[in-house]
């Protein structure tokens, strides 16, 4: 299996995802420069975290104009797994591949720390192997992860089971006190209706090796592989 990791100018978790794909999961991985247009031999597309185009204007806003995004949209259209992590999630929102928008964290500060996540939907490209109700621990690191969507949009997300991850406490309780950034409904990650496009703010690639303090994130990448295998 081959992970294709898209590099925008300013991406900075690209090498981290590459490391997890190739060294931890022992899979093929390749960087895809944002001006390239070839996703032909890729099984999973990863839009990594970072500050594409410096996060100027709005996070993800300038990256959506990159040529590769047309290819990513086609890849998604054909059912291929596309996962956006942190800035990658923001890019997916800006391109419209996922619904909703991102605001600055309630605290207005960048926040880097571990959080707990509750899996709310299994079977998506990033939760293929997870059970609903499963609690995972992994870091967040963002200044704009305050996910927002209007009432109608939220209802649709719920109706179509598109809320993949919610911030929760260690026991899986979803509430105000376990919401790090103000996201509506504690949303940490969502998918499209089909489940092949997933975006999330937390960083599974930072929680994929025990030496870094946890391995809960590995299951997400393994999910993507299983999903791609069909």
């Amino acid at each position, binding site marked *: 299996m081959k992970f294709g990791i898209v590099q925008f*100018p300013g991406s*900075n978790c690209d090498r*981290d995802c590459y490391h997890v794909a190739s060294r931890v999961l022992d899979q093929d991985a390749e960087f895809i420069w944002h001006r390239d247009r070839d996703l032909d031999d890729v099984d999973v597309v990863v839009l990594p975290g970072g500050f594409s185009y410096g996060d100027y204007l709005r996070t993800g806003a300038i990256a959506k104009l990159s040529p590769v995004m047309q290819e990513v949209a086609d890849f998604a259209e054909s059912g291929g797994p596309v996962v956006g992590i942190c800035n990658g999630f923001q890019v997916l929102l800006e391109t419209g591949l996922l619904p909703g928008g991102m605001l600055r964290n309630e605290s207005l500060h960048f926040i880097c720390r571990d959080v707990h996540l509750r899996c709310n939907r299994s079977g998506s490209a990033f939760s293929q192997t997870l059970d609903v109700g499963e609690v995972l621990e992994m870091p967040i690191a963002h200044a704009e992860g305050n996910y927002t969507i209007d009432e109608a949009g939220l209802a649709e997300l719920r109706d179509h089971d598109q809320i993949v991850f919610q911030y929760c406490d260690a026991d899986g309780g979803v509430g105000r006190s376990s919401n790090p950034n103000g996201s509506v409904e504690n949303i940490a990650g969502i998918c499209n209706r089909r489940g092949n496009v997933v975006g999330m703010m937390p960083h599974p690639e930072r929680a994929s090796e025990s030496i870094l303090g946890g391995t809960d994130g590995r299951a997400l990448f393994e999910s993507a592989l299983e999903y791609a295998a069909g």
Partner: protein
Amino acid sequence: MSEVDLKELALTGGLSEAEWDHLLETLGRDPTPAEVGVVSAMWSEHCSYKSSRVHLRKLPNEGASVVQGPGENAGAVDIGDGKAAVFKMESHNHPSYIEPYQGAATGIGGILRDVFTMGARPIGLLNSLRFGAPEFEKTPYLFQGVVDGIAGYGNCVGVPTVGGDVYFDDAYNQNILVNVFAVGVTDIDDIFYAEASGVGNPVFYVGAKTGRDGIHGATMASEEFSDEDEEKRPTVQVGDPFKEKLLIEACLDLMETDAIVGIQDMGAAGLTSSAVEMAERGEVGLRIDVDKVPAREPGMTAYEYLLSESQERMLVVVEEGREQEVSRVFDKWELEWAKVGEVIEDERFEVQEDGDTVVDLDVPLLTSAAPMYDRPTERPAYLDDLSTPDVSPADDLGEALSDLLNAPNITSKRRVYEQYDHMVGVGTVVRPGDGDAAVLRVPGTDSALAIAVDCNSRYCYVDPREGAKLAVAECARNLACVGAEPAGTTDCLNFGNPENPEIMWQFVEAVEGMADACATLNAPVVSGNVSLYNATGAGNIYPTPNVAMVGHFDGALDDGDGEGASTCGSAFRNAGDAVLLLGETDPSDVGASEYLKRQADDVGGAVPTLDLEREVAVQAAVRELVRSGTARSAHDCSEGGLGVALAESCIGTDGLGLDIDIEPGDRPDLELFAESPSRVVVSCPTEDIAEVVDVARSHDVPVMELGAVTGDGRLRWGGLLDVAVSDLRASFESGLDRLDEDLGE
């Protein structure tokens, strides 16, 4: 310009009367205005180290691990596997006082460039900050701006900020300190140097366009602050971390092609100092045509081009005929580039503008032959007025402990490091707040390095020589607590006005103390920075010789498969574990302590006595215990002494506590809060107690059992102390709440 005007320009540029006369005499003619700018920048304290150079030579800079000592953009040490750690620390004090966000941000940009210039991909940042008292009106604004600026820049470029320190004291009310450190890693064989060579080779300019930013920044960093700061304000530079990120990737890409002959960032005094320094190192000359420099604004003069401190720019000497490769790389990363000059044979710095030669100076005049001073020193009078510390015992040890944990200099810095991305790079093994040093995996290997920065400037005020030694000792001890051994040291020496003999005395004492400790601890100094004139009408800052070290583990780190060295954090791990103290407490070590400050509002006394041989032994013992995995936690005793160390080891856990089981003497408060150095608290399973004792004895280190980790979340010492760890945590986590006042941008 008339000679009078030229002189005026030189004096406002920072030259002294004597230096001006010396220049005229050496030159044998009137300088051009551009030449005046070049000379005043290169002869500034910041660029020339004219007051400090004679003393910096005393620092040990050799050792088996040293790959590159002082003299390059950064130092480099061997960390095994054919890799070098490349690192350096720099100050950005004055710019950060004037504009905290941009000042701190551009400090990060500058230190990163020093590291990747040498071919090393940056993997970690530290920052060491000093602010005025939290109650001082400007402190919240400066604090927030600086932290935001470091976060804004460091997070965006994607280099984790994994540690640092923050202190507050009235001494910094009008002159904060922002010292930043970066470390990168490269193959030893692939280090690049900032040396020009090959007559005829083209000189490329890459990165952001040049504007009128920061003209005279180097000079500003070399002058006392005065009320005219308002007028210096237009010199503030704005950083663009996005451009820096592109510059990092582009330079590292370009370095793979070996088309580069030499490369240097444009830091203080911009194009001038980068060109002159490259020429000097290569014993050649450089000719630059300012008309070719990409400009952000119309109508700039040679003077402005030469002294602009616009950020995110590099100067690269390329092998003739390989310009194509350079342009391909920079075009890919959408960076501005231009060929701006060439290497010439004569050791001269020549600058052309509109076809005229506007600068034609001997390179050595600007570098090796720049003024150098051995300034007079005098033992400061204030030292005679320091009190003999007199602390009456605290009524309630629990309250005293809680109060210390809440002290601004001890309290948790979580609100700072949580704003920094400290995990990007998937290499952060020990995170900020979790251990005494940060541990970073070396990309592409199984090994790791540890980094720490330290300096207790109150000690340095009371005794600069011993204070500097204590800073070095603590820094190395922090490495030992995670299992690492010093490979090399960098420093940032922040002092007041060197023209004041008392300040110069502090400086010399501190350098000599540092030299002594670094030599004994086998931690050669491979790079560093000096920041003088940290003084205002309100007085000089505390002498603050910040020390940062990079340590290695002598091989692989255990990544869970049981092979290689272990590392550990500072928090206890399991109820039932034994807690032991390596080293000895001397209850009279209370001078200049945090306890003295909090209880008696006094900074007097003598600093704790440091026995360097004992320090070496304690560190060796701790290192051995941590690496073998015998110690499950290790935490050194520093500000707040044993009491604070033990409390912190409890606070970092999820519900654990501690029963202290030692016979109290007649001053239990001093046993808890005296700051004797060379002490480390370790915990281990009870069956390993004998092992800990054996290892300590084999190093001739005193060791005693302090008590046992409990599962009930209380910190107890017989009938003397019984507090809930959750209360201590609340106190520890809230010491900076008073800084929440939102005072603006």
